[in-house]
């Protein structure tokens, strides 16, 4: 085994590890930001695999698309989610499975368990309230006595306010979440079923791949300068598909813009404010203004 083969082997190991660990981390971490970064790492690993497979252009295309795409997606997550930093779940490690604990806490092993917290002040107190609430919830599940529960819930609400006001600003939705710890988790209650199903799919695919006789592998090595060939093909043989993709992107842009426009569906409660603001336009003020101007000019 010469040096080049070793280098290829090491590169394959690194890229495959990056792809798989990134995907696993994306699926299991409690911090949404971190989950996006993990998915980006996974895609960069897959891009590295493409480059190892002599498709340099595709690897770079993959990396370019998904750096931008994942960063924008992270932006949206941070805007929409209750707890993009995963700080609430980080305070209650008992609710996570070991692998989730590894990907959400193994990366931040400092004893202060809320490093992703975005609140500007009193991190410590909200953290303590979280922990206290969690302990209460574990010991006496639903039949907690009112007094202790009330104080703790108050603290919980305060913690929510902190998260909400700094991360996404929808406190009205979160204020009444005191008793439902599962709702703060990023995963649904069918998580075990999903995990077993995914494991079954993975094992089935692995078994099929390993038991199947090998594909007929062509021996020749592709031309490393594939950009020219791909471009030629895109413009000759696959012209229709290329134009179709362009049209699809155009439609996607139109669809996204029309969906995200604010001045439709005026009856929706979320739109009450902009619509109300639009209903008192300035003609009342601009009406007398010309007359005043005329009076001044004449």
């Amino acid at each position, binding site marked *: *085994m010469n040096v080049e083969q070793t280098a290829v082997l090491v590169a*394959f190991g690194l890229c*495959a590890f990056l792809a*798989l660990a990134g*995907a696993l981390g*994306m*699926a299991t971490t409690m911090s949404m930001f971190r989950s*996006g970064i993990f*998915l980006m790492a*996974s*895609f960069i690993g*897959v891009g590295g*695999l493409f480059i*190892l497979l*002599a*498709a340099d252009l*595709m690897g770079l*295309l*993959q990396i370019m*698309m*998904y750096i931008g*795409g994942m960063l*924008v*997606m992270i932006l*949206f*997550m941070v805007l*929409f*989610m209750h707890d993009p930093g995963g700080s609430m779940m980080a305070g209650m490690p008992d609710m996570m499975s070991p692998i989730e604990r590894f990907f959400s806490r193994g990366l931040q092993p400092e004893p202060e368990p809320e490093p992703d917290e975005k609140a500007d002040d009193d991190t410590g107190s909200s953290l303590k309230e979280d922990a206290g609430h969690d302990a209460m919830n574990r010991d006496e599940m639903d039949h907690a006595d009112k007094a202790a529960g009330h104080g703790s819930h108050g603290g919980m609400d305060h913690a929510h306010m902190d998260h909400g006001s700094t991360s996404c600003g929808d406190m*009205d939705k979160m204020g009444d979440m005191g008793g439902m710890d599962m709702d703060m988790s*990023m995963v*649904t209650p069918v998580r075990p*079923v*999903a*995990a077993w*199903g*995914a494991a079954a*799919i*993975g094992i089935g695919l692995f078994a099929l791949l*390993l038991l199947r006789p*090998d594909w*007929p*592998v*062509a021996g*020749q*090595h*592709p031309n490393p300068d*594939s950009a020219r060939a*791909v471009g030629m093909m*895109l413009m000759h043989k*696959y012209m229709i*598909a290329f134009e179709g*993709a362009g049209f699809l*992107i155009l*439609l*996607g*842009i139109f669809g*996204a*813009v029309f969906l995200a426009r604010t001045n439709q569906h005026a009856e929706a*409660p*979320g739109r009450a404010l902009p619509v109300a603001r639009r209903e008192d336009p300035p003609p009342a003020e601009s009406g007398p203004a010309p007359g005043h101007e005329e009076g001044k000019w004449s």
Partner: protein
Amino acid sequence: MTIPLTAYLLVSAALFAIGVYTVVAQRSAVMILMGIELLLNAAGLNVIAFWRFVQPDDYSGQIFLIMLVTVGAVEMAVGLAIMLLLYRQRKDVQVDSYTELKG
């Protein structure tokens, strides 16, 4: 040729399984979109691996990947726009608060 085709396919299969888990288990719509991206990517890895090992002189596999990435990008854009709409209506993008959408 030190890395066999099966190694790439195994990586792709594992990515696919993780993507399935993400789509089923995650509760926020953004995370489900990310799981779908992962599924598309596993398919793309398969395409490129087969292109490289089975028919490296025909570049159709790479064209297919370009299409795949395009579709993924458009899906993400439209998905995020729908999510923006849902958030404006309900202040929430957790998919289990939209259960009345079924049938």
